[in-house]
């Protein structure tokens, strides 16, 4: 207990001179966004975010928060400072997860019920394209050069590589059952796709022209936990490409993986049904949303230890942080 307190204090001290960072957590069942101060780890406020808010992201300058309001069939937009609602974006039906290109212009949205990826212009608030993909599209990743968007389809079990130039699918890679999330390394040379029911993470090497090649699969094993409960969902890679963190759903753990050798190094115990992850912008902390315990866990990235948990809204789903 004492050491935990110390860690927190040191953490707080180190973060001293920077402006207060914030984490925005979408609460799927509470229909709200909880705002957490990432210096004090206090809940600042909670505001209405639309019906069934899930995927959540921020504009590159951190001024706007985008959230998939799944049951409203649109993307709601909020001012990151005042939390005022701004005009919504068209998303196509049942948006679940999305990814914003680095320029902040185009938003790529997975429409779970319609087997589509919708491309929306965030400035003109118009739909630029609809790309047909496999059944139940969910995970959305983007190559750092913004040339490819990767969508995972949960029932087709593929990663679809969509060119951002012509919105055509250039590659389809079969992965294990129920792929949930796609995450590139910062250098764009590797891609990880999590498979919830397959219980694995597929690792691919990405060639210069964006062509993927499967190089291996990561499996998980925790003593005393039924293998069926080890269900990889959210994933994040450190920007130096050394560590991959994988949320394991009902196993209530985040796996720490050597992103190069694909060896699983450790498991960090977090809240119940851990779903999505996001680093703080300085990458000191990794936040996890825990859907069944209605909290988030803060992981110290360097120490690879959970340092605290914070109660948020009902059934937290996604998380995004800003400076």
């Amino acid at each position, binding site marked *: 207990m004492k050491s935990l307190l110390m860690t927190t204090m040191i953490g707080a001290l180190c973060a001293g001179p920077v402006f207060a960072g914030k984490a925005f957590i979408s609460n799927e069942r509470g229909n709200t966004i909880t705002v957490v101060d990432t210096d004090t780890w206090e809940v600042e406020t909670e505001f209405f975010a639309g019906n069934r808010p899930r995927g959540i992201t921020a504009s590159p300058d951190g001024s706007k928060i985008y959230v998939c309001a799944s049951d409203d069939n649109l993307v709601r937009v909020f001012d990151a400072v005042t939390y005022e609602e701004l005009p919504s974006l068209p998303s196509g039906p*049942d948006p679940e997860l999305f990814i914003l290109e680095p320029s902040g212009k185009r938003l790529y949205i997975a429409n*779970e*019920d*319609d*087997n*589509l990826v919708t491309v929306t212009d965030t400035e003109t608030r118009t739909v630029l394209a*609809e790309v*047909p*993909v*496999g*059944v*139940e599209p969910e995970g959305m990743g983007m190559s750092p050069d913004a040339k490819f968007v990767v969508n995972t*389809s*949960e*029932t*087709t*079990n*593929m990663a*679809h590589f969509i060119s951002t130039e012509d919105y*055509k*699918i*250039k*590659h*389809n890679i*079969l992965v*294990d*059952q*129920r792929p949930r999330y796609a995450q590139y390394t910062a250098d764009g040379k590797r891609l990880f796709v999590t498979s*919830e*029911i*397959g*219980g694995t993470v597929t690792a691919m090497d990405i060639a210069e022209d964006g062509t993927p090649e499967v190089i291996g699969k990561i499996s998980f094993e925790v003593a005393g936990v*039924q293998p*069926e409960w080890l269900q990889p969902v959210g994933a994040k890679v450190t920007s130096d490409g050394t560590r991959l963190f994988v949320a394991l759903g*009902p196993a209530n753990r985040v796996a720490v993986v050597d992103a190069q050798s694909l060896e699983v190094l450790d498991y960090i115990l977090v809240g119940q049904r851990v779903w999505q992850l996001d680093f703080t912008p300085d990458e000191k902390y990794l936040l996890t949303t825990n859907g069944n315990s209605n909290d988030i866990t803060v992981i110290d990235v360097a120490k690879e230890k959970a340092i605290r948990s914070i109660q948020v809204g009902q059934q937290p789903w996604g998380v995004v942080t800003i400076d």
Partner: protein
Amino acid sequence: MPKFSALLMAVIALGSFAGSAFAIDVKAAVLRVDYPVLLPISRYDLRPDDLGFAGAALADEDNGTTGSFLGHTYETVTRAVTPEDAEMALGALLDQGIRLIVVQSNGDDLARLTDQAAAAGALVFNASAPDIALRDDQCRANLLHIAPSNAMNADAVAQFAVWKKWDEWFLISGSNPEDVALAEAFRKSARKFGAKITEDRVFEDTGGSRRTDSGHVLVQRQLPMFTQQADDHDVVIAADGTDFFARYLSYHLWTPRPVMGSGGLVPTTFHGAHEAWGATQYQTRFEELTGRYAKPEDYNVWLALRVIGEAVTRANTAEPDGVRDYAVSDAFELAAFKGTKVTFRNWNGQLRQPILLHDGKITVSVSPQEGFLHQTSLLDTMGLDRPESRCTAFN
């Protein structure tokens, strides 16, 4: 129309890159045998005309979307027939060259249809018959079971009862052969999980008091009398495979107790309110396509065709032997909105699957229950396990 154009575009997209996939046109059939039955106790249980077939339509869409990226197409024909016409209908399907057949029928008809299919080298998927013998000494090499057996359903209920520490049971069974078979499965489950049947009674099917304007009046007088003076019990277990009395038991018992089995809390593969593990997406797709809620039969047929789709996608085969071999291999796994992968028991061709416990509105619990362990798979705590099964067709 948007769906169609979306599919078309995907097919065009496929043309733009060289794949290693081979074009396969998958043809399958669903053969449903309709029996003369009385109306169900509840209108909610009325059988829609497209029962099961709706699941096939959804499966064709789902498989077809995946297939559009690989050069595979899926077409499933559906036939509803009387028991007398079943053989002829199957013959006609086999004559069309169809070798993958999903059958919705009772166990006896399933056995003879499976043998007829075997002569033509066809593979059969059982979407409804719960008979234990067909997973045991009466198993067939060309028969895979999607539907759970009576043993699996009874074990699903028993595990929940034991988890609740309701280990003294009052078993009430009907008098029809299906009821008797189900009652035997519950007796076996009680022994397997250490529950005790303190009272065991048969409720005779005399053909009366089914759903009528005054039905509840008779029921309210008859059932308390029928259930009085029973030995101490925690729960009433109903074995009513023919749906003639179990739904009436709740609230009409002499001693107030929860009801499970064929009434009260009922084991099922799926229902229209199941939402966990992404099932909401299945429900919305199904409802958009069919305009009604999904029934377990729809889900079972959908799942059978998804097994075929998975074999085609992963093993590049739509041949009956190829599909069967892949399905029972260690490589096979399938996500089925149950929170864990479903696989086949390679000793009797039965699909391993979690079983939902449904109160008519919501999923109350899902078996297997916490704490019931197994060296191979937790799912093998339900139904015939390898050492008990006398099936040799898969050796």
